[in-house]
């Protein structure tokens, strides 16, 4: 199993505070991994380190065997490391279709052309429509994002990521803020992600984690305290301690 994505001894300190300490993990193509941890465990810092928004104090990130540590955030996206956002970051006046076309045009290397029509390419329009249909967004495809439901906006975040056709997808709390009645929609969308894609999900919703992930990593106080099967995580003594019991009975 060759790693499509790996992180080695990634560390970040702010002053004397070790926010992330010696985090290592590696993922194979098609893997479904979840990263969980109580508030303040350093999950957001980890995402920022991996995506290149902040520089690590030490350690390395690599993608498909290539060292990414010195590559810019945009460069990492172009090489196939794509993320979604914990709080939706969408363009409120654009439609879902327009979001898709932006992502697809960028994948084709044509997103910043001046002498071109935004909707000029029928193949891309079809692909956009296909992805939106897969996620059940056809109805709202041509309405400004500001007018569509939050759950649908979350689905659109996933749709954009799919259009980018990444090698590794980082899902930052895909179900955050979604009413529990709508989480099945998100779950179904996640099931439709391409099987060969490596997905790293950061999530609070334990039910979602246990159904989605084949492997779980628990982060507490900036360190990995558990790596293993979802079924074992609730039994682990260290994990129970870290969560002070709050999630200890989850997943039963």
């Amino acid at each position: 199993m060759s790693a499509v994505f790996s992180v080695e001894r990634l560390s970040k300190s702010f002053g004397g505070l070790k926010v992330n300490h010696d985090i290592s993990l590696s993922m194979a193509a098609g893997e479904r991994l979840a990263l969980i941890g109580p508030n303040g465990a350093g999950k957001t810092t980890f995402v920022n380190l991996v995506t290149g928004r902040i520089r690590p104090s030490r350690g390395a990130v690599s993608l498909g065997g290539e060292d990414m540590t010195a590559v810019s955030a945009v460069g990492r996206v172009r090489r196939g490391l794509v993320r979604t956002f914990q709080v939706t970051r969408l363009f409120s006046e654009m439609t879902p279709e327009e979001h898709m076309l932006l992502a697809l045009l960028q994948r084709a290397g044509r997103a910043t052309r001046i002498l071109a029509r935004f909707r000029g390419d029928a193949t891309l329009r079809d692909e956009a429509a296909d992805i939106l249909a897969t996620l059940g967004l056809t109805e709202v495809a041509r309405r400004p994002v500001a007018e569509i439901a939050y759950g649908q906006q979350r689905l659109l975040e996933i749709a954009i990521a799919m259009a980018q056709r990444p090698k590794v997808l980082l899902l930052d709390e895909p179900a955050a803020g979604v009413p529990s009645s709508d989480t099945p929609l998100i779950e179904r969308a996640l099931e439709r992600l391409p099987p060969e894609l490596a997905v790293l999900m950061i999530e609070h919703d334990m039910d979602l984690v246990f159904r989605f992930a084949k492997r779980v990593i628990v982060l507490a106080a900036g360190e990995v305290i558990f790596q293993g099967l979802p079924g074992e995580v609730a039994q682990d003594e260290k994990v129970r301690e870290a969560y002070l019991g709050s999630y200890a009975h989850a997943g039963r």
Partner: protein
Amino acid sequence: MTALGLKPDGAQARPLLRDLASIALIALAGASGYWLFPDNLSFLTRVISVALLVLSLDLVVGYCGIASLGQAALYGAGAYAAGIACLNGVTEPFLLILIGAAAGAVTGLMMGAVMLRAHGLPQLVLSIAIVQLLHEAANKLAWLTGGSDGLSGMLPAPLFGLFEFDLWGRAAYLFGLGLLIVTFALLRLLVRSPFGMVCRGLKEDPLRVSALGISAFPVLIRMFAISGAVAGMGGALGAIATQVVGLDSVSFELSANALVMLVLGGLGQLTGALIGTVVFMSIEHVIAAINPFHWMTLVGAILVAIVLFAPRGLSGTLDELARLLRREGRP
């Protein structure tokens, strides 16, 4: 796509119709200006020249979300370049416009390279610094720019070799109107191109754009160059029409007024820039004649009212009115 239930063409056809309608309206307004105010054509030409400046500012402020109080640096660069070229024997008006556009674009590149290093307020301060520096340069380089006297005595060749740029300013006005219409049409295509959509994205959320794998800097610097070209054409038109170029063309005051006109008309729609310029300059023209000392007070009051009651500017408010009327009209 149709198989999935999306309407195939409606959404694409409508903006095109809107564009054609706006262009027809500009042509109509321009023609009525020509017939109704034959004695004020030189003023109307100045309106067109400044409208190009405000359009160029809309590209940067309205589409990219970069506030600038130094846009006249680009306008002035075009005006001086065209003026200097004209005094040195390049008199063909189309060529002078091109020279103005090139000078504006180069200045825009430099301005962008400096301004894009900063964000927010520091960026705004940089824009002011740049226009002040250029103003001072134009003042000091008297051998080239005429210093505080400015440049005068330019004699552009007749338009198409036939129509003189005479005292009545008919040729200059129609030339300017043509230039404005062509520029407006091209800018409409620009803002709806993939590039234009990325700019809108950058205005709202640069982090989202970078998560799509798009680098902001190359996009924004290109927009600065395009904006510079448009402002530079405005400056060159002013130089051709008035046959003088003064320090006021590269001033903080003109930059600030351009921003006021843009906010007055409405950001990020191009039409707003035109409406704002016409309304602001007409008010200035009429009231300054009645009371040259206090006209700014009235303009100030109108602005406060617009910001409070119509935050989307005049054009945004017109859009809303139109929508309301349409809703009323429905059975």
